[in-house]
Structures are given as structure tokens and as C-alpha cells.
């Protein structure tokens, strides 16, 4: 089996006429963990949402492909079935739909008709993954994200990640709002997926998650594009010294989008 790959080239994305991403490019392959870091307002979350197909974001130019298939030709659900996963920063609450029903529907959507997961197998798997994430059993029967705390929502996103086993996962600030114990648990979950058939793009503005998940590549995003890339040592330097040295090096005064 060939390794999965997500390839993004010269991507431009606008929201309500305002351009946020300005020529973003990256390639994430199976077996690789990439971290995208950067201060607030530099377009990190826009990247995540646009790749998944969020209705508010408009791709104005550029290309993205998943295993060679044009991502922007696909509906949101087709992107997911092709193997893309986005752990969202602010997942929706859906009243009346239990977590278990939702996850089961999602698993079955990724399988052929007549090949649906058996209830017993599903329950066993859900129990196992919830144990890994130290989630209380009651979360299965609660309505999807309804009344969940910020941290519970994040764990629930990772639960879906573990249940669906996508080829490429984008984790959008999965670490924000998590205490150190929760962070360790979430990292353990993500690390359990590591392998040649799984690629991961972690979006964060703190280095601390990267203490538990070692990235192969670290990219710094400013003004809607990647301005610097390196290995794990780059993240460590950012943690120690902040972003100012990069701005200085590149002659950037204001790193946020909309400033040149």
C-alpha cells in the first residue's frame, strides 16, 4: 500500500471577501507528523477549516490533493471518506443525537453497504478507545458535545479520530484548554495511531503538546503562509525565545494576516 499524502500548493483562502491564506503550501505523508505553529491571527485555523470544506471559507486559488485526488472537487463527506479528518477547535453541539449513534453512523458511512460494523464490535471498540482517553462511559449516551466542557469536547474529537482511523488528520488547537494530565492522555491517543499509513498535521501555538508528540517537521506560519520550516529543534527554540527573532530575521513587523 502506498503511503497516504496530503499535498497543498499555493493555497489562497478568503472569508467574507477578506483573504486569509496567501500562498500556503505543504506536503504531509503517511508516517510523518507536522506541526504548524504561529501566533494568533496568522491563518492556522483557516487552513484547517478550508481543507475540510467549512462552508464559510472560500478557496480562491491554489490546489490541494489527498492521495492524488483533488480535494476541492469533493464534498465535505467525500473528503472524510477519502481519509481526511479534522479535529475541530469548536465542534458543533448536536442535540438529540447520542455520541455513540453519531460515531457508529460515521464508521458505517466509511464502510460499504451490507458491511456495517456489528453492534457488539462497535461497543467493544468504543469502550476500548474511551478507556485509552480516560473518558467516562456516560459520554457514549450523552448528546453529541451538548453541555461538554472545552476539555471534554477535545477528548471527544480525539475519540472520533481513534474510532475512524483516518489517513491524514488535522488537529486544530487540540491542546488549548487542556490541563497537563488531559494533554498527556490526548497525546497518548494520537501517538497510538502512529505508523506509515497515518499522517498528522498538528496546529498549535504552544510548544507544550510537542513535548508529548514529537514532530518530524515544524513550520511557522505568519501572514497566511509558511515563513520558516525546520525540525523539532525549531519548536524548542520558539518555546524558549518566542517568535520575535523570526520576525526580525524575515523583516516582518506585524505577523497577523492583512499586514504586509
Amino acid at each position, binding site marked *: 500500500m502506498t503511503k497516504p499524502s496530503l499535498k497543498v500548493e499555493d493555497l489562497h483562502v478568503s472569508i467574507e471577501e477578506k483573504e486569509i491564506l496567501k500562498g500556503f503550501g505543504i506536503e504531509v505523508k503517511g508516517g510523518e507528523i507536522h506541526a504548524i505553529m504561529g501566533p494568533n491571527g496568522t491563518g492556522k485555523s483557516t487552513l484547517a477549516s478550508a481543507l*475540510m*470544506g*467549512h*462552508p464559510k471559507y472560500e478557496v480562491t486559488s491554489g490546489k490541494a490533493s489527498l492521495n492524488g485526488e483533488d480535494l476541492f472537487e469533493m*464534498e*465535505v*463527506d467525500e*473528503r*472524510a*471518506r477519502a481519509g481526511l*479528518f*479534522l479535529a*475541530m477547535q469548536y*465542534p*458543533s453541539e*448536536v*442535540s*438529540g*443525537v447520542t455520541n455513540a*449513534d*453519531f*460515531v457508529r*453512523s*460515521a464508521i458505517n*458511512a*466509511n464502510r460499504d453497504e451490507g458491511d456495517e460494523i456489528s453492534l457488539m464490535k462497535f461497543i467493544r471498540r468504543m469502550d476500548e478507545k474511551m478507556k485509552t482517553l480516560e473518558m467516562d462511559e456516560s459520554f457514549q449516551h450523552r*448528546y*453529541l458535545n451538548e453541555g461538554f466542557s472545552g476539555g471534554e469536547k477535545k477528548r471527544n474529537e480525539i475519540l*472520533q479520530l481513534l474510532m*475512524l482511523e483516518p489517513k491524514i488528520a488535522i488537529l486544530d488547537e487540540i491542546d488549548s484548554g487542556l490541563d497537563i494530565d488531559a494533554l498527556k492522555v490526548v497525546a497518548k491517543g494520537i501517538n497510538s495511531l502512529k505508523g506509515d499509513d497515518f499522517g498528522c498535521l498538528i496546529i498549535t501555538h504552544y510548544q507544550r503538546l510537542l513535548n508529548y508528540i514529537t514532530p518530524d517537521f515544524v513550520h511557522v506560519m505568519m501572514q497566511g503562509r509558511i515563513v520558516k520550516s525546520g525540525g523539532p529543534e525549531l519548536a524548542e527554540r520558539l518555546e524558549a525565545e518566542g517568535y520575535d527573532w523570526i520576525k526580525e530575521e524575515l523583516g516582518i513587523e506585524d505577523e497577523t494576516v492583512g499586514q504586509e
Partner: protein
Amino acid sequence: MTAETKFPVTQNDVASFSKDRQEPQWLTDLRVSSLEKVESLELPKPDKTNIAKWNFTPHQLEAKVEAAGNIEGLSDTVKGLIGENVQTLLAQNNGVTTFQKVDASLTEKGVIFTDIQTAVKEHSDLVQKYFMQDAVSANEHKLTALHAALMNGGTFIYVPKNVEVDVPLQAVYTQEGNFGLFNHVLIVAEANSSVTYIENYVTEGTPVEAVANIIAEVYVADGATVNFGAVDNLSTEVTTYVNRRAHVPGRDAKVYWALGQMNDGNTVSENTTYLVGEGSYGDTKTVAIGRGKQVQNFTTNIIHFGKNSDGQILKHGVMRDEATSIFNGVTKIEHGATKSNGEQTERVLMLSEKARGDANPILLIDEDDVTAGHAASVGKIDPLQMFYLMSRGISRHEAERLIIHGFLAPVVNELPIESVKEQLIEVIERKVD
């Protein structure tokens, strides 16, 4: 009444129909006097729906039904509604009882669960005491008068003092051909008794134009509890008037309604609870789905007379295609009903640009010392919810389905019987697919 009878039905027709059924004189008299009033009385006026041009006149009143009398003889439609282990069941097709089973232990305790035709013969005084008395009057309007004159099916349930009926009593009413169904359900729960009743209305065979005129009356005495569940599923061709009311004179008496309003034809549905007793409680939960071009009006009233009475209304509706539905919720607190509480919520989910839905919460309060609240919303599916569900690989269609089920769940999950809940979910599935 014979097959050839054209409307207007005459007083003689009504009297001889009553005689054929060996009804007591009081009922014959009520039928005849009600028929007299049909012409002069006006149609009801459900708020915001004009029904002046709807046809409520029956096409046909001869049942043409042969009762098999055994469970195997029931149609597949009915069998599909009653589950595996039938403990107590009354099945009627076009008002004629086709199957009846009552658990012997209930009969020993004095519980009556029988068709209305038998009840008026065998328990005439008891039926007369309640029939179209405090909950519904034959004189209210044209449709109640027509109902009293032409009643041709239904059920009587009587639960004696201190008897708790622990098995649900189920009735399945099928309507077939152009038969005009005038179904009457009368439930009397004496002091400190409790009972759960579930009814289904469904069209059998090839649907043709027909009318249904349905009235249910529930009387709840001191400390008694009645759970009333219904799934209405009459076909597109059937014009329905359905009025379910509870008169709750009992102190601390409770009535719970769980109504799945899944008719495909034009429907006027009223559901009213009179909380007369001190500390009485009324709770209405309804779900409705509109599709095609059907026009529907769902009005729920809870009227507080008793001190410390508590009324709760929760109505959820989904509108598809070019369907139009009005959801009226009326909480009325009369002067003297101090310390009462009335809450209501109406929510409508619109799935199509051409569908119309209105939610009208109305609070009418004539007493100072009360609490009341309402909430209403009419909206479309949240695009971010859709994005979220679809981002996990779920198709647009399936995502919509999940959201609709989720939207209706707060009501569906409250249905007191698992099999009926499943039935309703199946009907919803069919209607939203």
C-alpha cells in the same frame, strides 16, 4: 345507514343506526339532537388556519368489515404495530372490532377495556356519566355535533379506585376505503389509579378520499395518573379532525400526553387539558412532520383552574416540501389558580424553502401569583452542524436524517412504551426519507 345513504344523513338514519347497535336511549337521543344542530353550528376556527373549504362530511358510513376475531386474522399493517407479545389489545377496522384481548388479571380488578359499542350496552350509566360531558361537548361546533351524531367506533377504558394497570392498553384503529371514521375514546381513571393507553390510527389498503373525526376524552380523579400515547398515521387522502382532551378535576391528578402527529393528509388537531384539581399536572409532548402539500394545525391548550397546578407543553415539528403547519400553544391561567406554573416550548425545523411553519406561544394569565414561560423558534438546519457531521464521512442526506431525529428526540424519547417509540421512529424515518 346503508351504503347508498347520501349526506345529509337524516334523523331516521341516525335513530335506526343507534337501534341496530342496541344503544341506550340517552345515546340515541344525543345522536338525534346533535344531528339537528350540525347544520346551524359553525366549523371550529383553529387559529391561523382557514378550514372553511375542507370537507369533513363522510363519503361512506357502512363499515363493510368482517371480523376474524383471532390475531392471525389481523392485517399485516396491524400486526406490524402490535409487537410480539400481545397482552392487551383492541383492534378495530372501520370502527368494527376485529380483535380484542384483555389480560384476565385486569378484568378481575374491575378494569374495563372494551369497544365503545359494547360499553354503552353493558356499562350504560357509567359511560353516560362522562360521555361528551366535561371534556368535550357535542354542542361546541359542527364537528363535535357531527361526531356525536355519527360516532361509529372507539374504546372505553375504566380503571377503578386504587387500581394500577401495569401493562399498557393498546388500541389500533385502521381506516379503510372511503369510510368516514367517527372514533370516540373515553378513559376514566378513578382516584389513585394509573393507566397507560396507546393508540394508533393508520390507513389500510389503497387510500381514497375519506374523513376522520376523532375525539378522545380523559377523566382523571384524585391522585390518579393517565399516560396517553398516540401515533396518528392516516394517509394523504384522509382529512382529519382530532380532538384529545383531558378533564382533570382530581387533586394531584396527572395526565401525560405523548402524541406523534404523523398524518399525511390535512389535519386539525386540538389537544386540551383542563387542570381543575389543586396540584394537578398536565404534560403534553408532541412531534409532527409535514410533507407534500398538506396543511395542518396543531393547537395545544392547557387551562389552569386549580391552585398549584402545573402545565408543560413541548411541541416539535419538521416541515418538508410544500407543507404548511401552524403550531399554537396556549397556556391559560384562570383567576384563582394561584401558585400555578405554565411552561411551553414550540420548535419548528424547516427543511425546504417552500414549506411554511409558524410557532405561536400564547400565555393568557388572569392571576397575579403564578409563574409562566414560553419559548418558540422556527429555523433551518444549522450549516455548521451539517459541516461537522459530514466532516466525519456522513452523507448530507444521512446528516440531515440524524439532525431531524435529534430534533424530535426530546419528544420521541418520552413515549412511555418502547414498541410505540420504535414505531414512531419508523414512521418518522419514512416521512423524512
